[in-house]
């Protein structure tokens, strides 16, 4: 009998709390599909950096578990409260508290199992979508195939069960404290609005707004951020998010008390009262929802940043099919060329050298002027700190030069037009990001050749592999006659392949190098110790560098573009995917709470709308009131979250663009994220509106 009763109650709960049921199914589906990324054998075999994805998804899972357990706990408590009268009747007819607790837990477990099963079906579909997106992101073909991984299923199940058990454990205690009268009575209670010290509380609204303003101002203008200031602001922000709602509610109450003109217009009075009553009793929940929305928005904005980075920047970062570096300027790359010819279809090779003339004025200028380095390489008296400069590996010890003919040959390989220089001219090829920051600094450097000062002919900023291959950040291009006076600094090999490079070519090139390293010039096997010594010798040469990029630094001696880009993209996906994952779950959880609150109110306070109908409101007018009421209720935490996350995201976006060298305006990521966010928001809103109207009109 109990089982039958539980089943019937589950059916009713699933119908009444459809949004909750659906959200739990969506959470299961998300968990299952993202867990697949952890255990997919294909991915583990394909990428060296799969460990990063594991760590990031694991971290995301931790936060998701917390928030899902909170949602279940919230809903278990909420449904318990709504059904208290029913439980009172059970007690009245002789059920024991223990039996009712067991019945309720059983109901919840059945409901959970239902959502889990539904979620798995949807999860299999979502898994395919997710894998297709991931493969598309890393530029690989994905063939649809069901991967019902046991580990992934088990992990999803364990996570899910953990959330339920944590939530239900507390539920038993709640049953113990109940008595029949309270249970039977609690449903009858209407909203009891206790208004006290509203004038005082009203101040909280301007205080929170001023704090938000100061926070925004500090974020953009304050330079000396440290842990103390940051902690202070974060604690303040969290506090202010919660106090904001108390302030809004108090402000509305004072507005109505002062009988301002607005309250006599249209439905304002009813709407303001409904709204203030709701956010007053729910200020803590509203604060929590705003915090969740803010995190979700920020998560997806950062995810969009990295996503944009990988689609925009990577192709410029690695323009050559193959690029190989050697610290030995005499290296003829014989072994590498043999391997490439064996493994791939090579169109052409081009071996060339980067040169130095014993100066390091450009390096010094960049170390002391780029914002990324701050004042790190400046002494107190604003002169360069050469000791420190020597220790940094962003640039080589000496300035890097290239001769015009080599430069033009490389440009031709990339399909770019050739440039010409007079005998007394030089040009600089530099990363666009750096040029945008420095502007023209040719007036502050002196480049000499053949005994005379060369004049500056211009900057070139096309993608040119400047993470240590064609210089770090920059290379100075001089006429061939000038280069003859300089010394070879290191050697480079660029190769153009027909079609795509085979999978694993990069690894083979790396293996070749490590094999080579174990032999000395005479072909004798070296010990590990000797090999290490050679590494330090290379370091002594000071002719390796990686440029000043910070977001993605993939400075490799051997670079096969078709191997490196998927690897980097996968690495970036390890940031993008978990952020979306966390953002989505947070968003769904918060929206479920909002939705369930309103739907349950629509059933409990149906009489309010009946009264409106009795005093002459038409059905259309009541629908209008419901729509406005929901818009206010959904809009308030949305606007607060948009404002807070907007400021942070625009600031972060600006910083990200600065370091990554992207020209897209910083607010774009936030805008895309907000649109994506509001799409899901609208979906929940429409579902709630339809449900609300149905409940009222029933």
């Amino acid at each position, binding site marked *: 009998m109990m089982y039958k009763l539980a089943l019937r109650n589950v059916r009713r709960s699933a119908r009444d709390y459809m949004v909750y049921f659906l959200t739990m199914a969506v959470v299961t589906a998300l968990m299952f599909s993202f867990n697949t990324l952890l255990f997919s054998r294909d991915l583990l075999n394909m990428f060296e950096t799969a460990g990063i994805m594991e760590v990031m998804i694991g971290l995301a899972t931790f936060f998701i578990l917390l928030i899902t357990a909170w949602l279940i706990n919230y809903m278990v408590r909420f449904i318990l409260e709504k059904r208290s009268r029913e439980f009172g009747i059970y007690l009245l007819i002789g059920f024991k508290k223990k039996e009712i607790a067991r019945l309720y837990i059983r109901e919840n477990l059945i409901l959970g199992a239902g959502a889990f099963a539904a979620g798995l079906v949807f999860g299999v579909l979502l898994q395919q979508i997710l894998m297709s997106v991931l493969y598309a992101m890393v530029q690989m073909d994905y063939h649809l195939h069901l991967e019902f991984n046991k580990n992934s299923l088990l992990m999803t199940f364990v996570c899910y069960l953990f959330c339920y058990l944590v939530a239900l454990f507390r539920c038993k205690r709640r049953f113990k404290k109940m008595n029949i009268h309270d249970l039977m009575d609690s449903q009858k209670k209407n909203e009891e609005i206790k208004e006290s010290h509203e004038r005082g509380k009203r101040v909280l609204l301007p205080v929170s707004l001023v704090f938000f303003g100061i926070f925004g101002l500090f974020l953009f203008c304050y330079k000396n951020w440290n842990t103390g200031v940051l902690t202070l602001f974060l604690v303040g922000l969290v506090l202010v998010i919660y106090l904001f709602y108390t302030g809004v509610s108090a402000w509305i109450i004072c507005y*109505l008390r002062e009988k301002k*003109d607005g*309250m006599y217009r249209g439905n304002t009075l*009813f709407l303001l*009262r409904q709204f203030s009553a709701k956010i007053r009793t729910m200020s803590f929940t509203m604060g929590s929802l705003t915090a969740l929305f803010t995190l979700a928005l920020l998560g997806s904005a950062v995810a969009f940043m990295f996503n944009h980075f990988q689609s925009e920047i990577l192709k410029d970062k690695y323009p050559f099919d193959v690029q190989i570096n050697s610290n030995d300027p005499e290296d003829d790359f014989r072994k590498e060329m043999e391997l490439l010819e064996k493994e791939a279809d090579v169109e052409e090779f081009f071996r060339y050298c980067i040169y130095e003339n014993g100066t390091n004025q450009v390096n010094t200028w960049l170390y002391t002027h780029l914002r990324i380095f701050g004042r790190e390489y400046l002494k107190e008296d604003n002169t360069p700190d050469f000791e420190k400069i020597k220790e940094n590996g962003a640039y080589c010890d000496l300035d890097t030069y290239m001769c015009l003919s080599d430069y033009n040959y490389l440009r031709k390989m990339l399909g770019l037009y050739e440039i010409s220089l007079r005998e007394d001219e030089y040009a600089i090829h530099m990363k666009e990001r750096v040029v945008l920051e420095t502007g023209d600094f040719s007036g502050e450097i002196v480049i000499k050749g053949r005994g005379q000062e060369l004049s500056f002919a211009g900057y070139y900023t096309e993608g040119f592999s400047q993470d240590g291959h064609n210089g770090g950040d920059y290379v100075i291009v001089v006429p061939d006659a000038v280069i003859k006076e300089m010394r070879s600094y290191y050697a480079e090999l660029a190769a153009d392949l027909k079609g795509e490079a085979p999978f694993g070519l990069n690894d083979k090139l790396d293996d070749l190098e490590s094999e080579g390293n174990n032999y000395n010039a005479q072909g004798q096997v070296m010990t590990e110790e000797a090999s290490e010594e050679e590494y330090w010798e290379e370091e002594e040469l000071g002719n390796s560098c990686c440029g000043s990029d910070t977001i993605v630094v993939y400075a490799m001696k051997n670079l096969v573009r078709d191997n490196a880009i998927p690897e980097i993209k996968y690495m970036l996906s390890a940031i993008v995917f978990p952020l979306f994952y966390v953002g989505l779950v947070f968003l769904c959880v918060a929206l479920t709470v909002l939705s369930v609150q309103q739907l349950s109110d629509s059933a409990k306070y149906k009489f309010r709308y009946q009264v409106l109908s009795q*005093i002459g409101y*038409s059905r259309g007018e009541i629908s209008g009131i419901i729509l406005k009421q929901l818009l206010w209720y959904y809009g308030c935490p949305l606007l607060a979250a948009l404002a807070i996350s907007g400021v942070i995201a625009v600031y972060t976006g600006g910083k990200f663009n600065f370091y990554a060298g992207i020209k897209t305006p910083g607010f774009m990521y936030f805008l895309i994220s907000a649109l994506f966010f509001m799409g899901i928001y609208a979906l929940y809103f429409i579902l709630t509106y339809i449900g609300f109207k149905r409940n009222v009109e029933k």
Partner: protein
Amino acid sequence: MIRICDVEKYYGNGTQVTKAVDRVSFTVESGEFIGVMGASGSGKTTLLNMLSTIDTVTAGHIYYDEEDITELSEDKLSEFRKNNLGFVFQDYNLLDTLTVEENIVLAMTLHKKGKGKIKKECDDLLKLLGISEVRDKFPYEISGGQKQRCACARALANHPRLLLADEPTGALDSKAAQTLLETFTDMNRRLGATIFMVTHDAFSASYCSRILFLKDGKIFHELIAGENGRRAFLNEILDVLSLTGGEFQNDV
């Protein structure tokens, strides 16, 4: 004047049909305080609901002057309710999120009156019903009698042609009930409000000027208050009730 002509209301479908109101006809004159009495299930609330446009008739017509409200569309009905009717219910039906004053103001804002006019009329009503001192209180903070008087004030806010009251004293103690009924009489006499009250309490009914007795959906008797005062009218009502088999006896 309101004319109720052969109104019928059936519930149920196919095999099981319940006649809640069975061919009822009567008229309500302007300025009249009319009461309807009957046992539970006699159809009195159904009749009130049809009169108040909350429920539809199965057959028959209800005319407010020359306007047949059974023919009106849903939108026109709500417009009609807004302009012509006021409601007082047993369970007050006040909006719990609004203060006493705001409950009254809300009804007035529907008529798009100006702020000054709303404030003045609201003050007058609060004074008239003796609830000025609780104007800023929420419904849960005041007594049942005060709540019901607030509901009355709201019902009167837009000067309705007809005030409909469904067991208005049902949830009140005897003192509060008496005050409310005196208020009704006062509103009827001083403001000329037409009141249609449904009750099963003889004491409440004795305040009316005319009473219709309903049984099994039909009017079976009618009493008109004479010149002999309320006590005599109450005895007449009790006599009618005793004739019907004493079903109401316990309630008196």
